[in-house]
């Protein structure tokens, strides 16, 4: 019954791709952002299936929650200010389709040439392993990352701040 585990995956995957498609084609930016949020949530589902629960949680909380909300804000803010909707540029569609299709084709070719491998069943809690990784091997990058995030926040504030404020 080797095909049985494929079923939930196939469902998730098709949902994911459909959402992604809507993200890039939706006319209304607000819709796009919502579709993106959905995409991210479905991706979290994929992570769960991969037994990477911690990442799934982060994905939902940080990404789908934080980022999507931020995006919505931005979209609404700019829309309110300009009051116009920027249309797609249709002239580039063929070119874009060709480019992305050829990238996809080549990636697929590479992937299919790979030897088959499977996700290993979790012997220990994947989250525990992850924690060890972070606090032992990657302690320094982890700390650097936090510095980076602070810098990003300060930078963002500086950039977006009103000149006279």
């Amino acid at each position, binding site marked *: 019954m080797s095909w049985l585990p494929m079923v939930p995956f196939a469902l998730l995957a098709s949902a994911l791709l459909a959402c992604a498609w809507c993200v890039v084609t939706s006319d209304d930016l607000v819709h796009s952002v919502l579709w993106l949020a959905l995409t991210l949530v479905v991706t979290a589902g994929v992570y769960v299936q991969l037994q990477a629960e911690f990442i799934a949680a982060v994905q939902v909380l940080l990404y789908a929650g934080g980022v999507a909300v931020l995006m919505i804000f931005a979209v609404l803010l700019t829309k309110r200010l300009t009051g116009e909707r920027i249309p797609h540029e249709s002239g580039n569609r063929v070119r874009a389709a060709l*480019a*992305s299709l*050829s*990238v996809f084709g*080549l990636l697929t070719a*590479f992937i299919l040439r790979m030897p088959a491998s499977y996700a290993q069943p979790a012997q220990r809690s994947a989250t525990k392993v992850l924690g060890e990784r972070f606090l032992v091997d990657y302690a320094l990058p982890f700390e650097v990352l936090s510095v980076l995030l602070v810098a990003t926040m300060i930078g963002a504030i500086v950039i977006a701040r009103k000149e006279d404020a």
Partner: protein
Amino acid sequence: MKSQALLLLVVVLPALCAGVTGLIPYVRRRGMLAGTLSSLTVLATLVMSLVLLGRANGGEKVIVNVQWMPEAGKTLAEFGLRLDGISAPMLVVVSLVAAMVQIYSLSYLHEEPSESLGRYFTWHSLFVFSMQALVVSTNLMQLFGAWELVGLCSYLLIGYWWAKPSAGKAAVKAFWVNKFGDAAFLIAIILFHAQYKTWDIDALENQVRVTPPGALVVLLLFMGVMSKSAQFPLHVWLPDAMEGPTPVSALLHAATMVAAGVYLLVRFFPVFAANADALTVIMYIGIFTALFAALTATVQTDVKKVLAYSTCSQLGYMVAAVGAGGKLAAYFHLTTHAFFKALLFLAAGSIIHGVHSNELPAMGGLWKKMKLTTVLFGIGVLAIAGIPGFSGFFSKDLVLEQLEHHTVVWVVGLLTAGLTAYYMGKAFVLAFAGEARSDGAAHAHESGLLMTGPMVLLAVLAVVAGFFANPFARLTHLAEPGFHLTTTGILALVLALGGLGAAWLFHGPRAKDPAAVPGFLAPVDALVKAGLVDRFYEWSYRVVMLGLAKIIGWVDRYLVDGVMNLFGWVALEGGAALRVVQTGRAPDYVFAVVVGLVALMAWGYVGG
């Protein structure tokens, strides 16, 4: 004190003095202080040199060497001190004349600004250092180093009055000509090392006996001598060098520096003697220079120019003597010449100081105003003319005797002796006899004690030095002179008297126009005025060197660099053509990236 230490002090003390007078502003700005310091130093050097001369006379020989440059862990070049019979007399000559000249300068240049005087004495000390380092050299390499340094001092001192364009030109010309000769010298040094692996005097002497050097090497070495000792055709810088202050001409361009070439010939005589052909060439060049310079001197009107060409001519004698194998004669003549020529220059300086002019036709009747100077100059003239009893008689006779075996050279030598007496007599008569021919001459005055004192000492030496021929020969181990009156001596004496007589006849008070060039010398006058040698150098500098420079400069700017710039132009134009591709829109750039990515992936897929 030990001889090594003394020897070191003789060399180093003047250098230290130069450092003090040159680098300490307090001393440099007080010219008289610097001059006193410098004179005292060189007097100390003189005393030490005399002590060393005494020790060398007692048979002491000192050789010390330290490494100067390494090669492959061994010594390539050395710096050393050498005291023997050859270097000791030269040490004394150099420090003696230098001391006299420096003391003389204190008075002669007392009107100069203090600052410049500090510079003057610094260069003087530097010169004494370089010259002593040259004299005590243990090897060819060190000798070359010091050789170029004395050339530098000559350049600096000729250019002492740098604001005068003619002085600047003369200084630079002296340096260029010397550098030309030194380039040949340098090649010779390299060839010597390639052949013998050594530059040491003793080692070279031993080796050339086994394998004599080629004529080319010896003549290249001789070219260095030619430029330094003003041998034809590299003599052109010496007359111009008279642009420097007169004491400088006395020390550098008469007594010591120009004699360095002859010193080299004597010092390395075995090397030159090892190639007979080269030696013959050297003799002919020497005697030609002697005649040529003497002839030129006969038509000069500038007293310093007369003396300069006379120096040239006397150096020609010395070189010819070496060429004929008479190294002792050359060296002895060098010594006596140093005394009487320095004396002549200093006396000439005294005249110039009194008259404020170099021109002989503007003088006359100075006997009444400057009696002491007249006597001193007269002693110099008699010495250089070779009148018995004066030092020049002995040394010149030795030289001429050496030439006896080469008839033509001998005849030319005798002729030159007559000419020498003539032009020196002419200069003497024009300056001192008759009536004053200008205001300057009418208001001339005798010089002070600081100037006459050194001259008197030199005059004494110019008289008595000749009697030391035999001790000199014993000291230097060159050869026994066996002095005796020969046919050559009598002939030379007759010619000299004839020359003096002719001078009195044509230029004495009785002559119609004392300053005019007598008829038989008219062709010489015309040739000298044409200045062919100088014009040749002028041509080779202006046309050949500057022309080549211009061509190469043009080629570099417009062809070599032009091609480089053409690439730049192509890039600019090409860039302008490609500019349309750059739309500035982010999606276009992303697309370009994707195209590249796809291409890379495709290549990776096919290749991998």
